[in-house]
């Protein structure tokens, strides 16, 4: 699989059907190191499903995902779906693709520190001491140093999402996928999370962000793509997307979403 591909993440032609409905009709995206790509579109356009297909939380029906030159191995399963052919390989690649969920998904039986050190210890086989050291640096960075011993249920939504971001960063992933990271938050808590994500963009992290925060998307990303009914409606620089998109649909969407 020695393909000459300078892209860190190369996703090609993802198709996905849910119960006879075509949700994704062949979506591709390529990310070079340091790219911040915002994925926009109205609800039901397939943005989140696309993101979930990239690390196989959802199994696509067609397409391929290549991470740093290594393709996720698949075979055809029931109903023509692509299923992972090698769970070990998939786990190894997933560890390199961070995923931040809309609903945080912190583990409620573990405190913040334990949430962060779990995967580095289990997956990367870090010693507890090293994992804690790594976690403390990250807690500092997301502004939760004082909350390391708190359980998720004692934190606000914004704090939970920042803890979840720290948990993802602790794996030192090559790419991070954000699935509407602020959609479940009260409006006054959105900014604290966006600031953290913005600071990650500034330090050159490679990220794909599904978001409804248009101002933020425009500010942090160097590429944008707009999905509509499972297809890419338009793709390009944020400047073009927000100011003079080719697609009438995108222009209408932008007009109603930017105030």
């Amino acid at each position, binding site marked *: 699989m020695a393909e000459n591909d300078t892209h860190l993440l190369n996703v090609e032609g993802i198709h996905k059907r849910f119960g006879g409905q075509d949700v994704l009709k062949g979506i591709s995206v390529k990310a070079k190191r340091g790219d911040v790509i915002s994925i926009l579109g109205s609800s039901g356009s397939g943005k989140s499903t696309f993101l979930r297909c990239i*690390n196989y*939380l959802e199994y696509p029906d067609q397409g391929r995902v290549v991470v740093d030159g290594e393709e996720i191995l698949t075979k055809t399963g029931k109903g023509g779906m692509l299923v992972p052919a090698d*769970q*070990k390989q998939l*786990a*190894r690649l*997933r*560890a*390199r*693709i*961070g*995923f931040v*969920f809309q*609903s945080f*998904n*912190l*583990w*409620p*039986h*573990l*405190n913040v520190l334990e949430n962060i050190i*779990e*995967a580095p210890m*289990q*997956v990367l086989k870090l010693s507890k001491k090293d994992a804690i050291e790594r976690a403390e640096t990250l807690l500092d960075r997301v502004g939760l140093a004082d909350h390391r011993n708190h*359980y*998720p*249920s*004692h934190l606000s939504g914004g704090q939970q999402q920042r803890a*979840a971001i720290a*948990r*993802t960063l602790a*794996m030192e992933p090559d790419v991070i996928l954000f699935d509407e990271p602020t959609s479940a938050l009260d409006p006054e808590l959105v900014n604290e999370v966006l600031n953290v994500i913005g600071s990650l963009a500034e330090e050159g992290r490679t990220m794909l962000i599904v978001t409804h925060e248009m101002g933020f998307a425009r500010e942090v990303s160097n590429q944008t793509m707009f999905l509509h009914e499972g297809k890419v409606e338009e793709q390009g620089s944020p400047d073009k997307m927000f100011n003079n998109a080719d697609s009438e649909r995108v222009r209408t969407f932008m007009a109603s979403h930017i105030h």
Partner: protein
Amino acid sequence: MIDLHGFEGLLLQGTIVTVKLTFTALALGLVLGLIGATAKLSDTAIFRWMGNSYSTLVRGLPEFLVVLSFYFGASHVLMMIAAKFGYDEYIEVSGFVAGFVALGFIFGAYASELFRGAIIAIPKGQAEAARALGMSSFQTFFRITLPQVWRIALPGLGNLFMILMKDTALVSVVGLEELLRVTAFAVGRTKEPFTFYLAAAVIYLVLTSLASFGLRHLEKRASTGVRELAS
């Protein structure tokens, strides 16, 4: 105090057998319960069918009958198997083994329903987060799912545990010298049924009270971090 006519030692021995029987059956029952729950939630139809048949069967039969079946059935089956290898002697399964297997089998059937419900009650995102970080399905089950299943299932398991402790008395029928059987023996010798059955009742109450005290402690520990959700 009541005069036990020197049968204190025997009652104590009977109590110890009852406690041993309870805990061995519990251990077996928890394992069978988890296996049963996993089978019921399996993607494979045959496993689902086996898991569901297990609880349907056990829930549909009197416990007493299950205990008898294991005691007499087990020797019968073992002898049939042994005969195939040319061994024709009579094989007896001890009352203790038959009793703990039967009670564990019963406990497991009910526990599998509890575990199944608990696994379903855990939001799917919990396991997804683990898988997305590269954890294996094995790690995800034991590190993320199981500790939470435990918390959710614990009150129900406590109930089953109490019932199990009292169901051990059924095993007296196959000659195991547990608490009820030694009590009956003492009654036969002394002709003082009231004294001894009262003593046995007190001992059962002490055991169940200790158990419910222990369970409260476990529930408190298991709900760390989710206390306000649990209350």
